[in-house]
Structures are given as C-alpha cells and as structure tokens.
C-alpha cells in the first residue's frame, strides 16, 4: 500500500501530529515565560492582583465609583481579569507568526498552531485568575448559584473573539507590521470604552443611548454577562437592556471568527516567504 503524508494538513485541524506539536509548543512557552524570575509562575497570579489593588484604591476607595453596586471589589476584579485575558491573548496572538518566522522558514506545519500556542498562556492565566475570583467572591459573601455554569460559555465567546482577531490581524501583520502597533493603541482606547473600571449605570445616567452602544461591543457584553452570572444581577447585560438586538455582539464574534479563518488559511501558505 502506498502511504502518503501530505504535510499541508490544514484541513485536519486536530490530527494527532498537530495535537502533539501544539502540546510541545504550549509546554515550551509555559516553561520559558517566567524563567529567571524569583517568583516564577506566581507572577501570573500576582500581576492581576496588584493591578486590581491599584484600581480598587483609585476607583472604589478614592473616586467611589462602586457605591451603588454590591461586591464592587469583586465586580472590578472580574473586569480586570477578563480584560487582561483579552489583551494578553490578542497581543501575543497577533505577533505570533512574526515572532516564529524563523521556524516557519525552516519547516512546514499548520501555521494556526503557532497562534494557538501563543494564546495558550493567556488561557491558562485566566483560568487560574478566575479561581482567585471565585475565592474572593465566596469571601465577600456571594453564594454559589446555577448561573455560574453559564460563565464558561461567555469565556468561550471571549476567546473565540480574541482568537479571531489574532488570526486575522496576525496574518495581516506579517506584511504590514504597523498593525500590531495600531492594535495596541486601539486596546488602550477600548479599555475606556468598556465598563471595566466604571459601572455602566454611570454612563446610563447621562445618556441611555451611549450605554446601549457600549453594550453592543462583544467584549463588554461578555464581561457584563459574566459579572451578571457570577456576582450580582445588578450588572446590566446586553440581553437585559437591548433584548432582540443582543444578537449583534454574537454576530460580530461569529463573523470575525469565520472571516479570520478563511483569510488566515489563504494567507498562511505564504508566511514562509513573507514572515
């Protein structure tokens, strides 16, 4: 029998070979990430906690943003944890192809594996951080409820968006290195356009329309849903405010994801020449 091993196996997304390779790359990234630092992997935990401490002092204690919301510190923590997940994911993902260019020029393997492995550290981090969130939630007197089970769905949505953005912009970034920088600035702006440090009610008081527009952003929608299901039903959700129009953020995520996969597949053949 003739055995063919066609190396361009993009169609076979989760073949054994690809899973092994993804596993090895994730392991390597994970080992190397915090190497040489005294606290090592603890930094993955400490960084968001310190970030949270700063935001807590500034926005909860000094500016008193959260006086009307129950468990505001945990509410704030969820926001920062999810936001840093999204930024870390996309920033690593967009530069993945460019950074692994050396590898792509020497050997052929499905390129999406590089992007997946680059985002994996962010995924591991957010899972650990969410455990911290749950502990904080229990300490501050939130009792577990069935709605917690919906959290992974929103998390998956957020990851799908981050992955879509990474594949799409990462593929463009191979040729136009400006994209990475533009995205960094865009994320800075986005940070203030999403109710992470301020409660949405603050916006709604001035302009109900602005609050609704904010909720059309899939990142805002996912974060608010997780807050709603995990911490307090005071957190406004896109579904609760906009009803039928809540389909828009979902459509955005699906569209970005599908477009990115097609675009990435088309461009990935030439990464070895262009990266």
């Amino acid at each position, binding site marked *: 029998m003739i055995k*063919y091993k066609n190396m361009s196996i993009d169609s076979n997304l989760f073949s054994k070979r690809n899973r092994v390779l993804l596993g*090895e790359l994730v392991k390597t990234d994970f080992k190397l990430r915090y190497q040489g630092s005294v606290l090592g992997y603890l930094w993955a935990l400490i960084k968001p906690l310190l970030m949270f401490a700063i935001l807590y002092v500034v926005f909860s204690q000094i500016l008193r943003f959260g006086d009307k919301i129950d468990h505001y510190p945990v509410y704030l923590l969820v926001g920062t944890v999810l936001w840093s997940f999204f930024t870390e994911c996309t920033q690593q993902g967009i530069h993945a192809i460019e950074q692994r260019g050396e590898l792509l020029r020497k050997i052929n393997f499905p390129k999406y594996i590089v992007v997946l492995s680059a985002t994996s550290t962010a995924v591991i981090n957010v899972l650990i951080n969410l455990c911290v969130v749950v502990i904080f939630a229990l300490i501050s007197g939130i009792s577990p409820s069935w709605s917690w089970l919906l959290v992974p769905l929103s998390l998956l949505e957020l990851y799908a968006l981050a992955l879509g953005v990474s594949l799409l912009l990462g593929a463009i970034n191979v040729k136009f290195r400006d994209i990475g920088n533009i995205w960094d600035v865009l994320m800075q702006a986005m940070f203030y356009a999403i109710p992470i440090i301020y409660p949405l009610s603050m916006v709604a008081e001035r302009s109900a329309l602005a609050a609704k527009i904010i909720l059309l952003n899939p990142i805002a929608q996912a974060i608010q849903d997780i807050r709603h299901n995990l911490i307090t039903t005071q957190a406004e959700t896109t579904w609760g405010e906009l009803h039928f129009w809540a389909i828009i953020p979902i459509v955005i995520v699906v569209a970005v994801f599908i477009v990115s996969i097609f675009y990435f597949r088309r461009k990935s053949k030439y990464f070895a020449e262009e990266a």
Partner: protein
Amino acid sequence: MKWSDRYLKKMKSAAEKEALDNSISIEVKNLHKSFKLPTERSWGLKQAIFNRLKGVKGYRKQEVLRGISFDVKKGEFLGIVGRNGSGKSTLLKTLSEIYVPDSGSIKINGTLVPFIELGVGFNPELTGRENVYLNGALLGFSNSEMDEMYEEIVKFAELEQFMDQKLKNYSSGMQVRLAFSIAIRAHGDILILDEVLAVGDAAFQEKCNDYFKSLHGNQTVILVTHSMENVMRFCDRAILIEDGKIACEGKPEKVTKAYNALWQ
C-alpha cells in the same frame, strides 16, 4: 475559482497521487517558483497604500526555479549541487512544502523528513531532552515515536550524561551533534538534508560517514552539498542546478565534472 471547481481539482490531484509508481519516492514535474522581492521600502502600510495609489507594484519578480523535473527512486541517494543562489535551497523548501510552487507538481510517496537546517526550534533555555522532543514534534513525530528513537539519538550523539543540562551549557559542537543525530535517526521514508554533513570532530565525522554508507539502498536521501567529495562518496546520482534549471543530471562523476567546469 468556484467551490465546485476547487473540489474537483482536489479530487483530481488525489487521484494523480494514487497513480504514482511504488518504486518512485519523489516525482517532480516542471516546477516553477518565483518570489516577489520588494524594490524599495515597500514594507509597511504607508508605502503599500502609496504604491497602490500611484499604481506602482513595489516589487520585482525573481524567478528562482524555472521548470525543474526529476524523479527519485526508492532507496536512492540523490545529490543536488550548484552555485550559491542557483535555487537548490528553494527546491528543497518547495519539496518540504515550506514554499508553495507557482506551477508544476510534486508527488511524494511516503513520509518526508526535512532538515533545511539542523536543530529547528532548538531553545537554549530548555534541556537537551526537552529539545529533542520539541524538535521531534516539529518534524511530525509523536511522543511515543520519539520515545522509541530517543535512546538511539542520544547514543549516536554521545551525550548520555548531558541530556538534563540546558542547551545553553552545551558547546557548539555538542549542540550540532545532538541536532545531527536527530536528523539521521528520524525514521522517515525520505530524508532531506541541506549542507549539514560537516559536523563535529574527526571521530564524529567518521561515524557519520559510516552511517551514510550503511544507509545505501535502504533509505531515500536527498542531499544538497557543495562538497564534490561527498557527492562521489555517497550519491548514486546527482543533479546540477544552474540558474533555476537542471544543467546536468546523471552519475556523480559526470555531474562533478560539470560542476567543476562552472568555475572555468
């Protein structure tokens, strides 16, 4: 192209593959490959938009392979020689499916293990053992396949005591020995090597030479080299590439002569 067309094309190429003779390892037909080389600073968004507006292409087309055809039989040791920039490495990279050809076809019968460079993905911060498994995964081997090969690789590299040390603590000779051992111990049907023979000290060289001689007839190898000595010693057949075309093909003696004639 319509979806249906694309599907038909896929089916057709699959059918063609099936038709490949069992005694042939690789069949290359009329292979063309060109690159778009940026003429000036056309990298970046600004220049791209600028070029688009002015109708300037911003790149020059460089034809590297211009119609290459050859077969490699099963168990054959094929040498590829040629000047720098003649297209040897591009040919190997196209065979290894790192580059997509512009036109022409490549049929491969069996698993192909390419070594365009030794130690691809080697990381100085990882141990020797970790690097072997990472390199193996990149070449398409599973962990259990690597487990089988691991002892052999380490033994051939003579690095038994160093496998749990970080690679950055290896001497450069040791690093290359490890990488080379993975290359020749990797059990693929077709082995592709790009100028990677001159490795290690005299004793290690001797060992490698013996190993290559023992491969004779059992393993399909494609070797790119500048050493006519190696062509004469190992190869059953050789190809001289000049300017993206095959200038001479046949017995090592004949090709060596043609290669040497290039410099006169």
